[in-house]
């Protein structure tokens, strides 16, 4: 059973970088850029989460014989 921990670390890394850059951009005064950055970071993470959920649903459908 090989765990897919890479995705978790990737999400945590993206979250950290986005939080850091958000703070920096806000300090510099580019609040507009900071909000777009947070938005795109959220979208990126959301796509990873959606991929994980897709794998989850596909696995359930194959395990519980819904394809029959």
């Amino acid at each position: 059973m090989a765990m897919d921990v890479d995705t978790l670390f990737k999400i945590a890394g993206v979250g950290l970088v986005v939080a850091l850059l958000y703070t920096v951009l806000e300090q510099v005064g580019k609040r507009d850029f900071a909000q777009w950055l947070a938005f795109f970071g959220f979208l990126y993470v959301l796509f990873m989460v959606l991929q994980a959920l897709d794998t989850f649903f596909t696995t359930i459908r194959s395990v519980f014989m819904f394809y029959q």
Partner: protein
Amino acid sequence: MEDLLQTIGICFLAGFMSLMLKEKSPTISLLLTVCAAAVLITQLFFSIQLVIGMVQRFSDYLPSMDLYIGTLVKVLGIAFISETSSHLLKGVDQHLLSTIVEWTGKIFILIIALPIFYELLQRMLTLLPGTL
């Protein structure tokens, strides 16, 4: 046992990372928790597959019950998917949507399982005198 410890360890890891992110980017922290749950449950299914295989082996001994066991496994799948999705939605603070997912799961379980109840009712009616 190793798998259990691995799962618990990854849960703690995800929890700590989510706690770390909560202050600065709460949305990504929530998504991290959801992703961890989805990944771990997907891994759990490789163990559940063993259990389903054993249930399938029961159906080899009872060929007349094949249809019922297939339905039982499907009901189990719907229960699992709706319960997990509802808890995932509760995890991101969407209680209304989680309730809707739960009820949808219940209704679909009824739709799948009602033919079995119907057949049971018919068999019971054949046992009663004067109904045939």
